[in-house]
């Protein structure tokens, strides 16, 4: 095969509209440009964002302390609305994490080349989103220091957890999900930490990256086991994407409450989770690619692909809404009909219609190619989807609980400042962790991008060869 020329033009293949990598970069250039965010000190905007996030974290800490000292009474929860912001935030955050695993694991198995520029950012988002999610059930315990009661340990009371309860499943699902996501993230990071070690200018940086990369030297033996292991972990993470939110939806679906007791919940929750996560990936990615100067590896092709995925998952969510309301009517159950009627016309109807607007109508914008490539439209739409997915969970969880089967037990619901503090504070903490992480670890997988560049080169060389033989045949 002919060797590729160093500056090959991007071939005009009809199916490839947008290039995955803009321009051609040598390995050394890629190392330099992808380590740029790590090498450089944070600018004024970075520190301004960090300060803003820190302020939010302050509010968060106050809310946590109040929650622990006063108890759940500091929240707006009541009876019958025993689950509100705590569980809404939990479901929202854990759902956001799912897109990271989708991008890193499922797209890896499907050999989608475009994943490799954005998988680190998506996985980082997953890790922190799952951390935020895990905090809420702990706080909701009221006495978080007894969280270990959920784990099976030989206690002096000689009792064991009830494994028929969805809550023990939840605990197993979330700890597994977090651990596997972390291992996957760290494994993918090892070669890049070695690059950061070898490109580091100060001995102190070199020492820390050397420690973190565990002495990775890119040996053929390392790569050999790494590749097999990485692929296998992706294979394991794939059923996790489906299972974690399925188990979360069981918390609701296996109860008797109208509005919760539904078999559509597992697929509906999984689709919604991926939908919200893709929106969060876009929310973070669009500013990050510009500020971190990654526009040559995170191109419009990535934004376009993410928007298409958002449209697909959004359509599944829209179908689930339609189906839910249809089945409530079709079941002829008074309670089911009544709760869905309450969703549409009750005191919280504006939130329901906001959900429909954000999750059903807004993604329809992405049928248009022009809008998929308008970064402002995409970013605003992604933010709206984040809002929409939160309000969807509010409708499912809190509004369903205000109307139980017994009308004498009906109640209203209004959140307190502590509730808002926990929600906005968790967003701030998430932002803070994300900001710190992109400054410390390479935000784009360096080794995978180099491999991709090599593959693009080879594809181009092949195309040229094909065209040369064809052209030769035509001339004769």
């Amino acid at each position: 095969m002919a060797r590729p020329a160093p500056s090959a033009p991007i071939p005009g293949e009809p199916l490839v509209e947008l290039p995955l990598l803009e321009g051609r970069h040598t390995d050394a250039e890629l190392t330099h440009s992808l380590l740029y965010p790590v090498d450089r000190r944070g600018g004024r905007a970075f520190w301004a964002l960090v300060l803003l996030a820190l302020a939010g974290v302050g509010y968060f800490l106050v809310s946590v302390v109040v929650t622990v000292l006063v108890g759940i009474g500091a929240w707006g929860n009541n009876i019958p609305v025993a689950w509100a912001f705590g569980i809404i935030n939990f479901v929202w955050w854990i759902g956001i994490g799912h897109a990271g695993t989708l991008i890193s694991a499922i797209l890896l198995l499907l050999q989608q080349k475009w994943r490799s520029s954005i998988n680190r950012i998506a996985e980082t988002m997953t890790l922190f989103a799952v951390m935020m999610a895990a905090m809420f059930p702990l706080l909701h315990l009221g006495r978080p220091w007894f969280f270990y009661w959920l784990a099976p340990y030989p206690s002096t009371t000689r009792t064991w957890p009830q494994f028929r309860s969805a809550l023990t499943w939840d605990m197993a699902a979330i700890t597994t999900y977090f651990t596997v996501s972390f291992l996957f993230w760290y494994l993918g990071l090892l070669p890049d930490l070695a690059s950061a070690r070898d490109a580091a200018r100060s001995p102190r940086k070199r020492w820390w990256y050397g420690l973190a990369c565990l002495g990775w030297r890119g040996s053929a033996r390392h790569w050999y086991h790494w590749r097999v292991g990485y692929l296998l972990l992706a294979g394991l993470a794939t059923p996790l994407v489906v299972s974690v939110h399925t188990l979360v939806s069981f918390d609701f679906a296996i109860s008797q409450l109208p509005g919760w007791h539904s078999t559509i919940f597992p697929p509906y929750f999984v689709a919604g989770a991926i939908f919200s996560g893709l929106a969060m990936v876009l929310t973070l990615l669009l500013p990050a690619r510009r500020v971190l100067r990654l526009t040559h590896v995170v191109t419009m092709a990535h934004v376009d692909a993410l928007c298409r995925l958002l449209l697909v998952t959004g359509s599944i969510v829209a179908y689930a809404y339609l189906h839910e309301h249809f089945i409530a009517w079709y079941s002829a159950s008074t309670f089911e009909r009544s709760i869905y009627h309450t969703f549409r016309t009750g005191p919280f109807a504006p939130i329901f219609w906001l959900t429909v607007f954000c999750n059903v109508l807004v993604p329809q914008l992405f049928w248009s190619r022009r809008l998929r490539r308008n970064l402002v439209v995409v970013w605003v739409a992604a933010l709206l989807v984040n809002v929409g997915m939160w309000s969807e969970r509010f409708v499912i969880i809190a509004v369903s609980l205000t109307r139980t089967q017994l009308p004498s037990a009906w109640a209203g619901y209004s959140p307190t400042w502590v509730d808002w503090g926990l929600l906005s504070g968790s967003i701030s903490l998430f932002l803070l962790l994300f900001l710190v992480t992109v400054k410390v670890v390479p935000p784009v997988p360096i080794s995978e991008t180099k491999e991709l560049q090599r593959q693009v080169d080879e594809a181009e060389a092949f195309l040229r060869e094909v065209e040369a033989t064809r052209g030769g045949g035509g001339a004769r």
Partner: protein
Amino acid sequence: MIGEFSTPHALVDATRTMRERGFTHMDTYSPYPLHGGSEALGLPRSKVPLLALIGGLTGVATAFTFQTWMNTIDYPLNVGGRPTFSWPMWVPIMFELGVLLAAFSIFFGLLGLSRLPQPYHPVFESEAFRSASTHGYWLSVEAKGEQSSERISQELGALGATHTEVVKGERE
């Protein structure tokens, strides 16, 4: 003895030729996995999948045994006369623990098979070797007995190495 090559193809070709000429204790170093690199070195099949299978099955079996013993034998809870051995309810945790232990086996298994963490290795003695994780393609050949470092250096040079260097140190 380590030598640097300018392209991955040159490295893989050189590795294959060196192995055919009877050199042993070789390893290649590159910033990303080389296409055909492990075949050129003749590495045996990776044991990582086997470890993953063992880990996964251990997790599933452990979760089944523990849940059966805890909820059926040691502390049976009678909820409305439902059977205490309700194994379908244990499937979620069996799945989760299976995945968890399989993931641990993969992660620690592959680190163990790669002999990581390994803070020191003779190749780190070379300052030029820092390119191995960024843009260089390196081949290491152990100099031993009749395969003197001069001979290896000559061979590597003939195969297109742009730079050769001797590094001394204990293996492992």
